[in-house]
């Protein structure tokens, strides 16, 4: 099963370009393609991430961390490792996610000051990622099967696909529209509408460039229009296909950061 549109999520930096296609595509083909492009380029990847969380009053906070990704199955299971560098009092904190296809993801965190590794469970994936305006679902993706997809409109540059949740009670939005570039199938903008039909949240790719042959989002932004405030994420030192091995993504390495890959 595929995952969709982590367009502004942390996976964006790993996105690669697909060739433009002249043949008319069905909406399901478009979303499937975009999903693959957004989440599964290269067999692994690494980036330094700097998040600037700015609230409605203009107060901002910073999170700096390194993220590692390893694909288990192309278009399927993945593993992530997040190692915190800033702010100082959360340095050495780490997160690990095993993204599963047929069941809920497994998540762990390590809190060095408490000398504690804990599994984290979540009733849903729409909770905040470390206080930012990005949600877990923006990172690990939203299953295509959760929504009905319809092609709202298209122009020379983008398809706009409306996604309406099948189980509307489970989420806080009523639908979201995603703009997908025609040239490389990169989802560049997601607009979430609240239950009153008001645009309440925007997630967008602000800047992307080609790295090792993969068009890679190097700056993305999530904006909360209801409460105000936005988070800007910048990716540097992006590298693909480092040849990471699966043992890095185990509980053992939560306490002992895998220095080799984090540099």
């Amino acid at each position, binding site marked *: 099963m595929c995952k969709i549109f982590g367009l502004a999520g942390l996976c964006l930096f790993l996105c690669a370009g697909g060739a433009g296609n002249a043949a008319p595509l069905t909406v399901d083909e478009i979303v499937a393609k975009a999903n693959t492009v957004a989440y599964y380029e290269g067999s692994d990847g690494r980036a330094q991430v700097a998040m600037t969380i700015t609230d409605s009053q203009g107060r901002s906070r910073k999170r700096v961390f390194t993220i590692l990704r390893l694909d288990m199955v192309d278009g399927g299971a993945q593993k992530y490792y997040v190692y915190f560098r800033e702010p100082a009092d959360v340095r050495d*904190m780490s997160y690990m996610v095993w993204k599963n296809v047929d069941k809920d993801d497994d998540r762990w965190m390590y809190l060095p*000051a408490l000398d504690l590794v804990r599994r*984290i469970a979540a009733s849903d994936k729409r*909770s905040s990622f470390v206080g930012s305006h990005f949600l877990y679902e923006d990172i690990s993706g939203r299953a295509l099967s959760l929504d009905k997809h319809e092609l709202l409109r298209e122009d020379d540059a983008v398809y706009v696909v409306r996604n309406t949740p099948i189980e509307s009670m489970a989420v806080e939005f009523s639908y979201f529209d995603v703009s997908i570039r025609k040239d490389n199938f990169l989802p560049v903008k997601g607009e979430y509408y609240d239950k009153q039909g008001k645009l309440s949240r925007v997630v967008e790719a602000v800047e992307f460039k080609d790295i090792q042959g993969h068009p890679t989002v190097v700056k993305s932004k999530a904006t909360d229009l209801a409460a105000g405030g936005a988070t800007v994420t910048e990716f540097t030192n992006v590298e693909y296909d480092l040849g990471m091995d699966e043992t890095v993504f185990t509980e053992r390495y939560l306490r002992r950061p895998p220095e080799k890959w984090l540099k």
Partner: protein
Amino acid sequence: MFRKLIRFSVHHPRLIMAVTVLSVAVSVAQFPRLKVDTDPENMLPEKEFVRVFHHEVKKEFGLYDFIVLGIVNENNPQGVFNVQTLNTIYAITEQVKNIPGVISRELIAPSIKDNIRQGELGSVIFERLMPGPITTAEEALRIRAEAQDNPMFNGTLVSEDGKALCLYLPIEQKNMSYRISQEVFAIVKQFFGEEKYHITGLPVAEDTFGVEMFKQMAVSAPLAGLIIFLLMWWFFRSLTLIMSPMLVAIATVLITMGLLIGFGFPVHIMSSMIPIFLMPIAVLDCVHILSSFFEQYRRLGKRDPAVFAVMDELFTAMLYTSLTSAVGFFSLSFSDIPPVQAFGVFVAIGVMVAWLLTMTFIPAYIALLNEEKLRKIHAPAGEGGEASDLLGRALAGLRRFILARSRLIVVLSVVVVIVSGYGISRITVNDNPVRWFTAGHRIRIADEVLNHHFGGTYTAYLILEAHDKSAEIFKEPEMLRYIERLQRYLAEQGDVGKSTSLVDVVKKVYMELLGGQPENYRIPDTKAAVSQCLISYENSHKPDDLWHMTTPDAAKLNLWIQLKSGDNRDMDRVVRQVESFLGSQAAPFALEHHWAGLTYINLVWQNKMVVGMLVNFFGSFIIVFFMMAFLFRSAALGLISMIPLTITIVFIYSLLGFFGKDYDMPVAVLSALTLGLSIDYAIHFIQRSRELYAVNRSWEQTSTQMFQGPARAIIKNALIIAIGFLPLLAAPLVPYRTVGFFMFTIMFVSSFSTMFILPAITNLAQKTVLAQPESKMFCQCGNCFIVSAAVAVTVIYILRGYSLAGWGPSLSISVAIVAVMGGVCSRVSASAACRLEKKEGKNV
């Protein structure tokens, strides 16, 4: 000049009518521009520190004013924690989200708030307390257990006894509260069940009061007007004549309100009372005129000369009664409270409008009546034989008693003052907007029920601020433990129902992270551990909840305090408890503290109001004395004229002390009215006595005459106003009852004290009261000195009242005035003119 005005009015009645009608029309034309302001926060100037700070805090911590919807289930053994009630609450939450003005993302409800708890496979889980509708009783009980296990929810969202649950609806603006509360009531009405619904919270109470107050206004003032009308009809038996005071009253109210609105002032809780204050004042003078007109018309038999005779007789007294009332109210403009300023100034203007109308409209109105018609108006039976009817005989008897027992009356008066002094010492200063509603009111019931079940629906915020903004002191375990001790201390004192802070979040998250054992419900030992607990919490659905309690730089902390009562007195105690804790236990890091929150704001303006009113009151008291001394050309007589008023005031205020009624906002404002109205009878009594005495030169005769017409006028006046405002005692809003009670007692006590004490004193000091001054006031050194002291105090009062000068300069100026006037006094009294006068005086 004014006499010319009266003549002019009599000779050009139609013009006067036209001008009056035009003025009223112009004023009424302003009414569509009416702006209503029911926000008690506006009792403080916009720049007031606590207001500015309150708004900064609200913005900085993302706080909103709340409407509290309480759902109570007393029948089910599990309280609200049964499938049906919880699902109803879920459905209500979904609907209230959509009410315009409700900030749905900040709603506090079980289906919105995240809980942190132990999950499966040794995991920790962030989950909404009630993610969706439930189907089993076990789920309901799980929700209860989780909610009560979370210090952020227990006593706030859910009651400790499990019988009640509160939804907190954050609203965009306070003045939407009433409308939103009505929409919430409409929503809950669709649900039939054993649940009871209550809506409370200060914004709703205040906004609802505003709405009901205007409704009450539309009922009370006309009703009082109607009763006054009926009483006058009963006393004067002439519909034609008594129409005139009613028209004067109505015109006064319309013109004054038109001016207020026209000048762009919003109609506030205070100014909505203007009509009810102006009505008695406008009617009072007219009643004196009508009473006197009956006598004079009978005596002279002609219309115009009777009018002139009446005006001659009453002119001075009416001018001074109006001026004193105006001064009493105008002094409110010294207050720091903008709505009180507007109220004071416009009532003062209204008083003078009423006076002007009385001087012009009434003579014009009478001039328009043809003599035929006037002749037909029979004087009431009693008016024919002054001494023969029941009232006449009673008054004559009263006169004999007073003259025989003058000393006793004076002694009794002193006793009354002493006893009243004791009563006044027992007055408690307190206010509570919820108690502006009478006991059975929906808001009062909601207040009682919800504050019985919960930690309290009255909110105040204690803001702690680090001196060193970069030190993140509110992540320091030592600092958090200090706050933990403060919270525990406040809980022990008993006034705070519940307090919530970052400390509770840290402890809860720490415990759950470590596995949920209660012994880990504590503050972790290092700053890094605190930070990591907090960042874990930020993985919830609503990480922003953290910023209601601290700022992202951890330099400020908001301690959310819930009180079970909105009494300012209780808020005041909590403030003092916090001071005492912070004073006696040094904080581990340097910090300062400030208060915010509506409950605290109410305390601030109330303190200002009460203290301010007291200062105003003494100030106007002295100015009125000065005016009396000037009117009677004698300081001693000025003092005597203040005696009935003083007794009236101390007596009325002692009742507050004896009956345990709080000295609150309406009571504070009414002191100005008391002063203005109470002096009236004394002015009429002394002025008329002296006029009579100047003619007949006999106290015996003067007193006999005084206890005929003038005494009747006073009694009629008192009865008309006192009874006219009695229906207010049945009003559903407490401040209206207070006004009714005050009107009644002011009229009753001040007429009573005037009628007893002034004749008694006159009897004992005939020369002081009745004799024309032997010399000009300034020729007597004592008089001169007292007057200069009064001038000096007035100057201090005005300088300080408007904050024109500090205490130092004000006092210096006053001392200078006394010194200069002392010099002038000694020169003047030694002057040839005065010596000559003294000699002449002796010869007389």
